C-alpha cells in the first residue's frame, strides 16, 4: 500500500514537473526566441519535431533492451515494458511525422515527399504499429511475448536507418543541425539549447505515460489470470 502511494505520488510529481517545464518552454519558444532569419516563425516547429523523434527513439531503444531481456530472462514485466515503450514511442513518432509535414508544407511547398529520411521515419512508424497489431493477434501470452520481442529487436534496425538517413542519403530533408551530431554552428546556441530543454520536458511526459501504460499492462495480465481462474471454477 505504501509502495503504491509512493509510486502514485512520484507519478503525480513527474507529471507536474513535466507540465511546468512544458509551460516554461512554450513561453520561451513563443516569446523569448526571435524568428529565424530565413524561415520566420515556422521554424519553431523544430522544438517539438526533433524532441519528439528523440523521445520516440529512446522509447524504441527501451523496447529493444526490454525485448532482449525478455528473451533471456522470460519475465513478463520485460514484455510489458517493451509493449508500453513501443506504444508511447509511436505517439511521439506521430508528433514527429505530423509536425514535419506541416513544416514541409511551408518550407518545401509540399506536405510529403518520398525522401530517404521521411520514408524511413514512416516505415519505422508502420513497423512498430505492426508490432502492436501482432500483439493483438496472438492470444497465448508467452507466445505473444516471444514473437513480439523478436519483432521488436528487428524493428530497431528501422530506427537506426531513420537516424542515419540524413547522413547516408542526401535528399530533400536537411542534414544534421545539432552539435551532438557534428554540425558545428548550424544553429544558434540559444535555439539548440531550447531543443534539449523541450526534449527533457517530452522525456518527462513520456516517463509518465510509460508508467501509466505499464500499470495497464499489469491490469490486463491480472484480468487474463482471473479469466482463467473463472473458467476453472
Amino acid at each position, binding site marked *: 500500500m505504501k509502495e503504491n502511494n509512493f509510486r502514485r505520488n512520484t507519478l503525480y510529481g513527474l507529471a507536474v514537473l513535466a507540465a511546468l517545464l512544458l509551460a516554461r518552454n*512554450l513561453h520561451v519558444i513563443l516569446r523569448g526566441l526571435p524568428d529565424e532569419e530565413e524561415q*520566420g516563425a*515556422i521554424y519553431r516547429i523544430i522544438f517539438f519535431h526533433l524532441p519528439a523523434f528523440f523521445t520516440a527513439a529512446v522509447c524504441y531503444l527501451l523496447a529493444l533492451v526490454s525485448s532482449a531481456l525478455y528473451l533471456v530472462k522470460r519475465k513478463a514485466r520485460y514484455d510489458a515494458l517493451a509493449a508500453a515503450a513501443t506504444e508511447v514511442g509511436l505517439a511521439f513518432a506521430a508528433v514527429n511525422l505530423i509536425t514535419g509535414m506541416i513544416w514541409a508544407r511551408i518550407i518545401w511547398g509540399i506536405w510529403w515527399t518520398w525522401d530517404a529520411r521521411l520514408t524511413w521515419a514512416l516505415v519505422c512508424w508502420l513497423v512498430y504499429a505492426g508490432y502492436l497489431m501482432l500483439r493483438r493477434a496472438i492470444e497465448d501470452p508467452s507466445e505473444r511475448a516471444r514473437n513480439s520481442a523478436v519483432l521488436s529487436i528487428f524493428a530497431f534496425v528501422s530506427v537506426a536507418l531513420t537516424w542515419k538517413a540524413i547522413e547516408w542519403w542526401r535528399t530533400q530533408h536537411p542534414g544534421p543541425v545539432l552539435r551532438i551530431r557534428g554540425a558545428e554552428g548550424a544553429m544558434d546556441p540559444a535555439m539548440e539549447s531550447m531543443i534539449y530543454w523541450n526534449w527533457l520536458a517530452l522525456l518527462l511526459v513520456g516517463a509518465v505515460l510509460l508508467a501509466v501504460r505499464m500499470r495497464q499492462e499489469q491490469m490486463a495480465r491480472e484480468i487474463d489470470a482471473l479469466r482463467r481462474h473463472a473458467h476453472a471454477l
Partner: protein
Amino acid sequence: MDERNLTYMFYGLSAAWLILAGYVLSLAAREKRLKRQLDNLKRMIEERERK
C-alpha cells in the same frame, strides 16, 4: 511577418499537443475499461465461489 507562416506554426504546435492529448485520453479510457473488467471479474468469481 508572413501570416501564413505564423498560421502553420500554430497548426504545427497545436498538432503536437493534440496528438499527445488524444493519446492521454485514449489511455484514460483504457484504464477505465480495464478497471471495470477487473471489478466485474472479481465480483463474478466471488459469487461463483460463494455458490
